[in-house]
């Protein structure tokens, strides 16, 4: 098998996330964008790529069926509700999917935590479902891990994100409860603590604000210097796939037994301007995971 052959993909969803993904994957030689799937022929997202993608599909997932043999997998940027149906169809056709909705169907994956958290690993079947959880999940998870690994007796974990209102599309707005639920699930998985809380604030300020995520962890004890060092190191690792990820308030004792830290995510500025760090981090995670999953399974096939 030729390992340099591009990974053939479809993108389902033509909102903020789908169009940003499409723009980036068209410029990434590791991938070939075979199809972009929307639900309306007048979708501005489809129109944006009219001469760049082989199959611009306007009638939803049904429209993708005839082309399934042309793809290895798909990125689903629709909604948690629709993802279920999409995954049924893709799994049947032996395809992988990177789920960018908060559906919680697939295995949650934060690329930087692979090998650090037992359940965060690549799957051995090409037809696998990876959940990218949420933007707040991707931005908070590395810091939750850094602080948790320096703490003992974790009592409570809280992750709060504020994002520019302009960067929150209709699906995010409508499904804010699912965002919270999925983000909390990821925090629990990483910290091994069941008392978790996620908060999302949409900020309409002009000029738009950069995405910020604050992590608060209450624990019986914590080695603050270790938390600082681990957090600094992991931020550098995240920057390899999300260059705009940075620490703005390093771990400090917010109160007795509560450690707090804040990161900021500046977007790469592809389809939406640089304030859309929330799109950047979840899309970068999905692209990174798709590449690693395909490389992994190609090498598995070769064995």
């Amino acid at each position, binding site marked *: 098998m030729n390992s340099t052959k591009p990974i053939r993909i479809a993108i389902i969803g033509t909102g903020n996330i789908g169009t940003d993904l499409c723009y980036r994957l068209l410029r990434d030689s590791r991938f070939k964008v075979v199809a972009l799937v929307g639900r309306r022929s007048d979708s501005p997202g489809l129109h944006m790529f009219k001469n760049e993608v082989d199959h611009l599909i306007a009638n939803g997932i049904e429209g993708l069926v005839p082309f399934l043999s042309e793809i290895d997998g798909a990125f689903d940027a629709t909604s948690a509700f629709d993802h279920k149906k999409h995954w049924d169809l893709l799994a049947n056709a032996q395809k992988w999917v990177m789920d960018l909705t908060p559906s919680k169907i697939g295995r949650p994956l934060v690329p930087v935590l692979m090998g650090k958290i037992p359940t965060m690993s690549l799957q051995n079947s090409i037809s696998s479902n990876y959940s990218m959880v949420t933007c707040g999940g991707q931005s908070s998870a590395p810091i939750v891990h850094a602080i948790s690994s320096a703490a003992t007796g974790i009592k409570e974990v809280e992750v709060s994100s504020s994002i520019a209102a302009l960067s929150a599309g209709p699906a995010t707005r409508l499904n*804010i409860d699912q965002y919270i639920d999925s983000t909390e699930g990821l925090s629990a998985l990483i910290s091994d603590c069941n008392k978790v809380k996620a908060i999302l604030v*949409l*900020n*309409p300020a002009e000029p738009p604000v950069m995405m*910020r995520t604050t992590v*608060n962890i*209450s624990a019986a004890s914590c080695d603050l210097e270790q938390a600082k060092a681990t957090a600094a190191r992991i931020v550098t690792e995240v920057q390899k796939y999300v260059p705009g990820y940075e620490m703005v308030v390093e771990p400090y004792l917010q109160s007795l037994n509560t450690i707090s830290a804040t990161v900021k995510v500046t977007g790469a500025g592809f389809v939406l301007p640089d304030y859309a760090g929330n799109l950047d981090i979840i899309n970068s995670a999905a692209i990174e995971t798709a590449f690693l999953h395909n490389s992994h399974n190609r090498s598995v096939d070769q064995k």
Partner: protein
Amino acid sequence: MTDTRLYDVTLRDGNHALRHTLSSKFVSSYCEKADQSGVWAVEVGHGNGLGASSFLVGKSVESDMALLQAARESLKKTKLAVHSIPGFATIKRDLIPAIDFGVDIFRVATHVTEADVSQKHIEYLSNKNVIVHGVLMMSHMIDIKGLVVQAKLMKNYGASAIILMDSAGYFIPKEVSERVSAIKNELDIEVGFHAHNNLGLGVGNALSAIHEGASLIDGASMGLGAGAGNAQLENIVAAGSRELTLNPNVYSFLQMSKLVEEAYFDKLPRTTSSSTQSGLAGVFSGYAPQVIAISEELGMDTNTLWKEMANRKLVAGQESMIREIAQDLMNL
């Protein structure tokens, strides 16, 4: 205009002033008095509403449910209400238990430009046997035309009233009149108004809203609320009775305010140089405790911090940014 109903936020907005230390014991004794006063509803809970107890905006000493239970047991005639912000509260975790618990009124609140985030919550509640209002917070941060658009969204989702919150205490009476009448004229819906006292205009603004036909008027006993506090409920009643726009029993409201005065004298809000500055800047006055604490810790002037927060147009729920802005200003 005797159909004006008074909506008491002492036990919710007041929890900001108490740094979320409100006790179920106080809720019980207050609600017993409130139930005799003719006040239409009492709102209870964390200052930022259901499910908001957090490191970000402050932990409640007692849970939502403990406070609601105390209120439910004491309220027979007066309705029990909650404030709820999507992004903090979720349907499953917070709204469903509150419905099961017997809360009568749910006020689903968003920042004034983000009403669409309330869709699922308002739709869900409007199919239950409860009263649901849509609340537009920081309502000064949009023009009148935009305000009507946002109010209409909440109406279409199923809200039976739209409440305008002057969360920063920024409005002057003329601006209140213009906004209430715009919504009354363009949408066939009940309108409420929630005043803060940063510029000393809380009661005056509440009366302006009544004059334009707002029928749900928020107030807090002794003004117990975020920042410079809310419009003083007993003073709305007293002034309203002189104008003949309101006709409740002033004396029973004074008993409620006396209870607050005795329990929390040292926590009563007042207009200060800091709250006037935040009001003039149009910044959410609930940030005052953090602004004062962080300014003191880093040795900086509160007014400088308020001004920079205004420059960055901070909305409610962004407590974590205050420290960052302060550090930027101090070049830390």
